[in-house]
């Protein structure tokens, strides 16, 4: 089931009528979510990603715009008739019911022609439980389960009625780091097996990048960029997107372009053909630095962090907008930790130049 969002807008009226302004939580969201894909809505808190999700679920009504499931306009359809499965951030499992009762609950609500026999319901419940691998926990209460297990129950409950669209609100935020890695793979697997169009919300870019077919980066209610994770990472449209994706985050510098050359501080670090002379903001991915004794870029070495496979070099530069510059180099490179300066050359496709005012990307030709 493809999901189409058309000029979707949500405006919350101001609480304080005198002083407050109304809040535009989602502003003119247009997107066609292809059938059977896993989509990550990504952005910092307050960017409208959860509001978007709740509008798709029907729990919130859009101020304007339309939502289609396939060819059906569901904008005015109440939640219960949309056929969505929703997994809440804190799971919202009914604490007084066992796992089995929780999973059965949506099926027991079915009326009329959809009504199922007890055996059929149980079968479906066990099917869903098996899919998320909790079929051995069916008689436990939610309070007797770990966070990860609760998460699975919540997914099973959302899946059991075979929703047209599965929605996950910050599905991993309540899990510890190790479980988070495991569970996100799990979500990926479940989505692949069921082929249900799945939309999930997260503020964790790593999470979104690692499992999504496509990500949507949002900021203050406005969609910044939509695309495959790698595509967005490699080709951000503006500084916000560049900063939001990637760990460690991108290094940002004040720079200027003169005569087709990009200057950071006094160093002419890169040729940037096609950009006119101007002050710019420069973003360089941590992996965009290459240790080079004769490299054009000079930085003051602070320290070196060994991470096994890689080495992270922490240095400073007067033009840097972050307190420190972090570069990631293959551990095979020997770093002289006693040196005062470290010199880099740059990988051109890891360097992004942005307009200083609008923060929009200015592209240059990479040779």
């Amino acid at each position: 089931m493809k999901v189409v969002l058309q000029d979707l807008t949500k405006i919350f009226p101001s609480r304080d009528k005198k002083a407050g302004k109304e809040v535009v939580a989602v502003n003119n969201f247009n997107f066609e979510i292809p059938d059977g894909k896993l989509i990550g809505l990504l952005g910092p808190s307050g960017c409208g990603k959860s509001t978007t999700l709740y509008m798709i679920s029907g729990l919130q009504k859009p101020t304007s715009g339309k939502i289609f499931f396939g060819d059906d306009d569901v904008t005015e359809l109440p939640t219960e008739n949309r056929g969505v499965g929703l997994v809440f951030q804190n799971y919202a499992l009914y604490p007084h019911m066992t796992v089995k009762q929780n999973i059965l609950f949506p099926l027991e609500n079915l009326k009329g022609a959809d009504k199922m026999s007890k055996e059929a319901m149980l079968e479906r419940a066990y099917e869903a439980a098996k899919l998320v691998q909790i079929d051995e926990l069916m008689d436990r209460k939610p309070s007797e389960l770990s966070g990860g297990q609760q998460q699975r129950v919540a997914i099973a409950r959302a899946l059991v009625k075979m929703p047209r669209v599965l929605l996950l609100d910050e599905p991993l935020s309540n899990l510890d780091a190790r479980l988070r890695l495991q569970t996100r793979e799990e979500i990926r697997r479940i989505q692949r097996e069921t082929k249900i169009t799945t939309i999930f919300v997260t503020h964790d870019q790593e999470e979104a990048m690692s499992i999504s077919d496509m990500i949507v980066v949002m900021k203050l209610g406005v969609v910044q960029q939509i695309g495959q994770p790698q595509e967005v990472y490699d080709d951000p449209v503006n500084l916000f997107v560049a900063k939001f994706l990637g760990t460690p985050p991108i290094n940002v510098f004040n720079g200027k372009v003169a005569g087709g050359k990009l200057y950071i501080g006094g160093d002419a670090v890169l040729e940037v053909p096609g950009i006119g002379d101007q002050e710019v903001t420069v973003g360089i991915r941590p992996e965009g630095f290459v240790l080079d004794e004769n490299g054009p870029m000079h930085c003051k070495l602070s320290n070196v962090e060994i991470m096994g496979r890689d080495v992270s070099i922490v240095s400073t530069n007067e033009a840097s907008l972050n307190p420190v510059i972090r570069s990631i180099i293959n551990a095979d490179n020997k770093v002289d930790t006693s040196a005062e300066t470290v010199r880099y050359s740059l990988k051109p496709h890891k360097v992004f130049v942005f307009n200083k005012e609008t923060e929009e990307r200015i592209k240059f030709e990479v040779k």
Partner: protein
Amino acid sequence: MVDSKHQWKAWIYLSPAIVLLLVFTVWPIINTVRMSFLENYSGLEAVGGATFEFGIGNFQKVIEYKRFINCLKNTILLCVLTVPVSTILALLIAVALNSIKGLQKVLQTIFFLPYVTNSIAIGMVFAAMFNIVGSFYGTQNEIVVTAGIINNVLEFLGFERVNWINAGSSYEANIIVMTVYIVWNALPFKILVLLGGLQSINKQYYDAAKVDGTPRRRVFTKITVPLLSPMLAYVVITGFIGGFKEYSSIVGIFGENMGPVDDVGRLNTMVGFIYDALETNKQGRASAAALILFGIILVVTMINMQVSKKRVHY
């Protein structure tokens, strides 16, 4: 743990409370037990130097009293009638209050008013409503002239007027009046507790139910009530305890007669029985009755706890 060196300090800080508790709570409890086991104990005679033998005569006498059995019957009947009715009504009102937005605070205050009103005063108003306006005890002549508002309404709707509480009224009519009054009086506290419970239920359970297309009734029975069950258990248990101590409500409606003028003491309760014994200087008998009442409340509460252990869900 408090450092043993400073323990005396802790005791000093606690001493005002401990002294007060010892004098006004612990000693009276011990003394009640003592008095109940002294045959025909009377405070007045004890001051005069009389001594009393140990024995269980007080308990025997209390149980053999027809009046006591009558009090016990009234008390249990009122409990059984009022606790379920007031709990269910309070639940419905709390749910309704919780689902409206605009006037919630105003209505909440209105529903809470009886709680801060003197129950004797409420009783007098109820007596007036069920009785003849302006006359508390009334005579048969007055009933014929001006009935209370309840009877006015009944007549307006085409029913026969009922002699609710005056001379010649039936026991059933008396009990109906008491039930209405006690339920009304018990509602505010229960509504307050249940509304508090409702407001602390995570809204996401309702969102989840909505996504799954749960019908309203099912939301109420399968989600709201179970999630409210700890509060419901609390309200029922305190309701029973309060019910067994029913006294001032009867006084509020019937005055110290504890019944219609032609049948004094008809609606007397356990606590009323204890007060009567105290008034006639039979502290031994009063103590025995108090211990019996304590035993009954203990048993009922334990049963309540056992039941709620199975029914309270988490």
